[in-house]
C-alpha cells in the first residue's frame, strides 16, 4: 500500500514535470517565431468582454486578411468584464510582453503616466496617417497626457449627455408635460402624483443627484471645475451653494419616500425590463431611447439634464493602447489603422463571419443569426471605430450621421485634455478618497440632511489636506493652460 502511494506521488510529480517543460518549450517556440523576418508577426491583443466560443474561428478569417494586407496575424484574448480591472493591471505592472490592450478613463491616464504605453504621436504621422484622418480630433486632443498621445481612441460618441429617462406609459397616463423639466426641482409634482397613485412603482430608480461640474477624478471626489462661469479655478464642489441646494432637494425627496429607503447602500441595478420605476438617470447618445425601449419592451422617453459636453471621461471611454513591452509596435499600429479604417475587417471583428454569424440584406443592412448571440457576442465600443460598422435592419438610417452631429454640437469642458499628476499628493488623496466614500453616497442620494453632513464632510476634507491638493491641481492646470495655444 505504501509503495503504491509513493508511486502515485512520484508519478504525479513526474507528470507535473513533463507538463511544465512541455508548456515552457511551447511558449518559447512562439516567441522565437515572432522575431524572424518575412514571417508574419503575431500581434497579441487583450480586450474586455466575456470570452466567446467562436473567437478562434473568426480570427482565422481575420488572419487570412491581415496576413495579406500587413503581413501579421492577430491573437485576440478577451478578459471577462468583472476580471478586467485587476487582471489587466497585474499584466501591465508585471511587464508582460503583449502588443495591444484595451484601456479607458483613469486607468489609461495612470498607466500612461507610469510609462506602460508607447506614445504614438510619431507613428500617427507614419503607419497611422490614415487612422489620424479618420478620427475625431477632439478625441485625440482629449486623451493627451503630458502633451503626448498614448493610445487610439474609439471613434464613437465623444461627448456625454446626462438625461432623465421616464417611463412613457406613466407620463402619458397622468399627462405630464416633460418640456418643462429642466432641473431636479422640476420633477417634484410628478413624483408626488406617482407616489400617491402608483403603489407598485418607486418614483425614482435610485440615482445620485446631477451636478453641473467637470471633475478631476470623478463625481465623488471633491475636485471640480464649474462648467459655467469661472472655468479656470478648481474648487471643492461640496462647498458650493448649488450643491447644498441640490442635496436639500434630494433629501426632501428621500424623506417624501420617492427613493428607496436604502438608497445610499443600495446595490439594485434597476433592470429596464422590470417596470417598477418612474424616472431614472443615465448617459445618453443619439437614439438612446430607441435602444432602451427595445431592451425594456415598453417605451421610455428622455429629457436632457445638460447639453452634450465633451469631457475627459467621454473621450477616454475606450482606447486601444500599444504596450511599452510590444516587440513590434509599428505592426500593432498598422493593424489598428486597418481595424479602424477598413470596413471589411472592422465588421468581421465586430459581427463575425457573414453567413455564419450574420446575414446581409439587399439594402446593405445586416441581421444577426443565432450564432452571433450564442457564439460570438462581442462589444462594439471596446473594439474600434463605430462609423464604418454596418447598420442593423432596425437601426435608423441616419444613425452615424446623428452621432457626428451629436459630437459636433458638444460643448468643451474646461479640463478637456488636462490630466492631473497626483504624485506629490498621494497620501492626501488616499485619505480623501476614504472620506468621500464615507459621505458622498449618502448625500447624493438624499439619505442624510446636507445641512448637517456637508459641513462635517468639508471639515474632514480640510483635516485630510484638501487645500494642498487643490493648490497642486491649480498649479498644474495653470501650467497646462499656458501651454495651450
Amino acid at each position, binding site marked *: 500500500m505504501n509503495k503504491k502511494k509513493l508511486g502515485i506521488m512520484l508519478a504525479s510529480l513526474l507528470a507535473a514535470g513533463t507538463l511544465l517543460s512541455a508548456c515552457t518549450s511551447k511558449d518559447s517556440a512562439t516567441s522565437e517565431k515572432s522575431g524572424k523576418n518575412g514571417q508574419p508577426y503575431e500581434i497579441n491583443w487583450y480586450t474586455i468582454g466575456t470570452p466567446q466560443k467562436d473567437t478562434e474561428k473568426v480570427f482565422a478569417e481575420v488572419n487570412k486578411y491581415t496576413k495579406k494586407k500587413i503581413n501579421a496575424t492577430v491573437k485576440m484574448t478577451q478578459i471577462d468584464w468583472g476580471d478586467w480591472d485587476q487582471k489587466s493591471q497585474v499584466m501591465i*505592472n*508585471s511587464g508582460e510582453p503583449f502588443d495591444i490592450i484595451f484601456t479607458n478613463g483613469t486607468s489609461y491616464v495612470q498607466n500612461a503616466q507610469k510609462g506602460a504605453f508607447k506614445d504614438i504621436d510619431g507613428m500617427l504621422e507614419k503607419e497611422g496617417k490614415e487612422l489620424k484622418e479618420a478620427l475625431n480630433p477632439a478625441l485625440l486632443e482629449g486623451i493627451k497626457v503630458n502633451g503626448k498621445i498614448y493610445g487610439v481612441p474609439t471613434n464613437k460618441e465623444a461627448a456625454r449627455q446626462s438625461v432623465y429617462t421616464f417611463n412613457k406609459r406613466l407620463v402619458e397616463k397622468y399627462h405630464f408635460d416633460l418640456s418643462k423639466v429642466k432641473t431636479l426641482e422640476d420633477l417634484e409634482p410628478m413624483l408626488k402624483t406617482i407616489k400617491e397613485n402608483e403603489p407598485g412603482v418607486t418614483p425614482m430608480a435610485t440615482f445620485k443627484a446631477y451636478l453641473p461640474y467637470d471633475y478631476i477624478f470623478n463625481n465623488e471626489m471633491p475636485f471640480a471645475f464649474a462648467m459655467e462661469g469661472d472655468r479656470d479655478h478648481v474648487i471643492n464642489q461640496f462647498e458650493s451653494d448649488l450643491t447644498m441646494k441640490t442635496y436639500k432637494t434630494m433629501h426632501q425627496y428621500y424623506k417624501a419616500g420617492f427613493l428607496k*429607503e*436604502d438608497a*445610499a*447602500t443600495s446595490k439594485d441595478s434597476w433592470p429596464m425590463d422590470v417596470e417598477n420605476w418612474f424616472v431614472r438617470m443615465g448617459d445618453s447618445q443619439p437614439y438612446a431611447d430607441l435602444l432602451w425601449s427595445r431592451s425594456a419592451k415598453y417605451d421610455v422617453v428622455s429629457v436632457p439634464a445638460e447639453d452634450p459636453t465633451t469631457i475627459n471621461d467621454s473621450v477616454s471611454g475606450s482606447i486601444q493602447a500599444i504596450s511599452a513591452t510590444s516587440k513590434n509596435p509599428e505592426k500593432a499600429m498598422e493593424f489598428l489603422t486597418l481595424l479602424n479604417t477598413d470596413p471589411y475587417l472592422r465588421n468581421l471583428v465586430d459581427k463575425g463571419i457573414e453567413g455564419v454569424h450574420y446575414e446581409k440584406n439587399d439594402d446593405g443592412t445586416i441581421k444577426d443569426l443565432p450564432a452571433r448571440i450564442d457564439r460570438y457576442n462581442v462589444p462594439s465600443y471596446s473594439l474600434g471605430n463605430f462609423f464604418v460598422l454596418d447598420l442593423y435592419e432596425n437601426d435608423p438610417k441616419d444613425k452615424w450621421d446623428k452621432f457626428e452631429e451629436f459630437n459636433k454640437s458638444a460643448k468643451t469642458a474646461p479640463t478637456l485634455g488636462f490630466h492631473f499628476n497626483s504624485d506629490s499628493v*498621494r497620501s492626501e488623496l488616499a485619505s480623501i478618497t476614504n472620506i468621500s*466614500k464615507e*459621505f458622498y453616497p449618502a448625500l447624493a442620494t438624499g439619505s442624510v440632511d446636507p445641512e448637517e453632513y456637508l459641513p462635517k464632510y468639508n471639515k474632514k476634507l480640510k483635516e485630510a489636506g484638501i487645500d494642498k491638493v487643490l493648490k497642486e491641481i491649480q498649479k498644474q492646470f495653470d501650467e497646462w493652460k499656458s501651454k495651450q495655444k
Partner: protein
Amino acid sequence: MKRILSDLYKNRVWLLMVLPGTIWLLLFSYLPMFGQVLAFKKFRIDPDGFFASVMNSEWVGFDNFKYLFSTNDAWIITRNTILYNLVFIILGLVTAVATAILLSELINKRLSKVYQTSILFPHFISWVIGSYFVFTFLSTEHGLLNHILGWLHVDPISWYSESKYWPFILVFMSMWKGVGYGSIVYLASIVGIDRTYYEAAMIDGASKWKQIKHVTLPMLKPLMIILTIMNIGRIFNSDFGLFYQVPRDSGALYGVTNVIDTFVYRGLMNLGDIGMSTAAGLYQSAVGFILVIITNYIVRKVDEESALF
C-alpha cells in the same frame, strides 16, 4: 567545512523530506519577496519587464507609508483592526475549542456527524452571498428583524446607518463563519488523544468535567498556543469581505467598520499605486512579525516546548 558536510550527510533523510517543500517555498514565497522593495520606490514601468521596472524606479524612502499614519482616520482604522482581531482571536479560540469538545462528547455519534457537517457550511458561502443573507435580516424595508420589531411595537431600526450595532454583528458573523472550520483542528486533535489517559482518569473516578479539564485541555494546549501565536502575527490584517461586503460599504458605519485593509483598498482606488499597496502589506507583516517574536519569546520563557521556534 568537513563538519558541515558530515552534518548534512547525517541529516540527509530529513533534508530529503523537506526538499520538495523548500523548493516550493523558495520559488513561490521567497523569490517573489524581492517585490517588497517597491514599498520604498515610486513605481514606473520599464519596457524590459518587471525586474527592470523595480530596479529603475526612483527611491522615495518612507513616502509610500505616509498615508497610513497621516490622518485621524489612520488612528481609527488601526484601533478597529487591533480590537476586532483581539476579540476574534479570543472568542474564536473559545468557541472553536468548546465546540470541538462538545462535539466529541456527544453520545449520539450520528448526530455529532450531522452537526459537524452543518457547522462547516458557512465556510462555503462567500461573503458576497453572506452579505445578501445578512441583508434579508437587516434591510430597513423588508428585513426580518424590523418585522419582528414591528410585532413588538418597536420602531424599525435603520441598521445600515446605526454604527453602534455593528461591532456585535461583525463579531457574530465572523464566529458564525469560522467556528466550523476552526473546530476541525481541535476535533482531530482530541481524537488523536490516547484513550488510556481517559481510562486512567475514569478509574480514578474523575468526572467528565474533570476529564476535560485535566486531560483534554492540557493535550490541546500546544495547538491552542501555536494557533494563537500565528493569529497574533496577522493582527494587522483582516478579512476584507467581512468588513467591506457585509456592511454593504455603508459610509455611516465607517467609524466601526473601516480597518486597514478596507482603508487601503478604498484609498488606492483613484491612485492604483502599487508602491503604496506594497507598503501597506509590508507594514502589516512587519508589525505582525515583531509581535510574533515577542509572543514566542514570552511563551518560550514560560513553557519552552509549546513555543513555535
